[in-house]
């Protein structure tokens, strides 16, 4: 187990290097001269003089070779310096950290909501295959997958906030502000997970060892919870880890709509402001979250599946 973990963690090093390289180069390959853009921003949209642009390019180090720029940038990043935001002038890292809690609580709660809905629904659908309940929940899941987040967000807002007045329309604060964004983000994910849970469960309950479990005289619910569930969860766990990426992507939209000061909204604003260091910081941050959530998936995968755990492991 320990060796498995260590190997996984070592593999992160080249992945992270790749991530930084891609993040850095996409920004530099994008059209538009950052120096010119900054000056244009300062001048309120007017064309900046050539001389000033050249000077700023020199100052920002944009005239030295690409790989040297990357090296310098990487060195700073490792030291925790992501540069300063063009808009506010404050360090990007500080900006990201101050927005992180809002995004984290949104991602966690929406994942919890999606699992809370999807796992039971998927199990029931599989066990009561082709029943009314199954058809009903699978149609529900189809709707859930097809509904765009922004549309669902607006519907929820209109109904729960404007019509019923139960929850705040938008903003950031306590749990009450978190409910609608998390539900919006959670339902889309739940729909996908429920379908996966169902098909995984269906496959498992036709396995020979399920017959063995039934032949022991176990009640059906114990066959499902004790013998089928752990097996059926293996692909679902893998998927949920990848879904965290989906949650972040969704966060960009959902946070913007609900005016939550999270990283998603920060990215959204930064793109419109052409705030390069901020965009770079956000992308790097998302990539890191993605990589680490995959690590967590690998660990839980090993927990669920002993065949992985023992592969060149403890023996």
């Amino acid at each position, binding site marked *: 187990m320990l060796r498995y973990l260590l190997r996984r963690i070592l593999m992160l090093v080249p992945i992270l290097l790749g991530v930084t390289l891609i993040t850095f180069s996409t920004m530099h390959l994008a059209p538009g001269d950052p120096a010119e853009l900054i000056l244009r921003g300062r001048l309120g949209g007017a064309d900046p003089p050539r001389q000033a642009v050249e000077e700023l390019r020199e100052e920002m180090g944009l005239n030295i070779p690409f790989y040297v720029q990357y090296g310098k940038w990487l060195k700073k990043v490792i030291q925790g310096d992501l540069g300063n935001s063009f808009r506010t002038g404050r360090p990007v890292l500080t900006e990201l950290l101050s927005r992180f809690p809002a995004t984290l609580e949104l991602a966690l709660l929406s994942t919890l909501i999606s699992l809370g809905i999807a796992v039971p629904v998927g199990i029931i659908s599989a066990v009561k295959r082709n029943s009314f309940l199954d058809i009903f929940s699978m149609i529900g899941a189809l709707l859930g997958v097809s509904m765009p987040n922004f549309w669902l967000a607006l519907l929820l807002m209109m109904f729960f906030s404007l019509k019923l007045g139960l929850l705040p329309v938008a903003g950031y604060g306590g749990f009450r502000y978190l409910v609608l964004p998390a539900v919006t983000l959670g339902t889309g994910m739940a729909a996908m997970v429920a379908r996966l849970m169902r098909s995984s469960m269906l496959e498992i309950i036709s396995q020979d060892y399920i017959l063995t479990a039934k032949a022991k005289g176990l*009640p059906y619910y114990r066959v499902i919870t004790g*013998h089928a569930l752990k097996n059926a969860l293996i692909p679902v766990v893998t998927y949920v880890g990848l879904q965290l990426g989906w949650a972040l992507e969704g966060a960009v939209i959902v946070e913007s709509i609900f005016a939550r000061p999270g990283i998603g909204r920060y990215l959204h604003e930064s793109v419109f402001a052409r705030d390069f260091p901020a965009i770079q910081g956000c992308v790097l941050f998302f990539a890191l979250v993605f990589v680490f959530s995959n690590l967590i998936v690998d660990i839980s995968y090993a927990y669920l599946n002993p065949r992985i755990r023992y592969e060149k492991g403890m023996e």
Partner: protein
Amino acid sequence: MGYLLNIENLETSFNTGDGVVKAVNGVDLVIEEGEIMGLVGETGCGKSVLGLSIMGLLPTNAEVKGTIAYKGLNLTGLPEKEIRKIRGKEIALIPQNPSTSLNPVLKIGFQVAEVFHLQQRLPWKKARQAAIEMLRSFDFPDPGKRAEEYPHQLSGGMKQRVLAAMGIAGEPSLLIADEPTKGLDALIRIQVVEILRQLVLRTSATMLLITHDLKVASCLCDKIAVMYAGEIIETGPTRDILSLPRHPYTRGLIASLPSNGLVPVRGLSPSLIELPAGCKFHPRCNQAAKDCAQKHPRLEIVDDGCKVRCLFNDQNCKPEKKLFHGSFQKEAG
């Protein structure tokens, strides 16, 4: 000795998209207490379905007619809740395919202990101890450590032993062993036969041994029932069946054993959706006469304990040269 299991006119069919699959067609079978009954036939003749019909473990598209009287209680049509009390406790199954019949994510100690916990109402700690003792009795070296392992860490023979241990953990009155030697290589097959023999000697349980391997049946069973296309076509004491087979199909099976030169029964077993009229074996029978295509023979008593389903069973009665040369003969009656 009374009948432990009395199956009368059992019919099991499946509704599928291609039509109704008639897997079991009017089977009568009696198993007496303490005996080992071998149910022999080719793959797809309905023998495993018969076993699962007894356990009530068929998929939902199955339809079961007739009676399966276990200790006088009819199991067909029994509600799920009632038949569940029979499973594991009264009738246990040793499933086919040891490599896929154990749960890959649960420790084997737990999988055995579960039966003790459920059927003997032992608390988990004691159930675990009992499971380890059970594994020890099946010649597991260091069973305490083995109990902590997962199925993929065991060899095929060991998995079979775990399944056998699970089967008898609930101290059932009837054991159904479904193809315990299917797909195993020769060495493991001998091991499994040994395991089953030990099992029988130890528990004095009644067993229904379902197998396509006549040789395995011959060295374990007191009686043999030969099944073809969902029907029993011949039944009787093992010795009589092997030394004096009356049905052409039984003779064919014996002739197809490796020790007898591997002469195959010509043709293929019929589709269970469209069964032939008359004697179901007639298209493959080398003694078929005109009548065979029209008249469906009944399972008739030919002499003490032997029954055969063939229109010409009288002619076939003549003693022939000894056809069977078993290499692992049955020890101890």
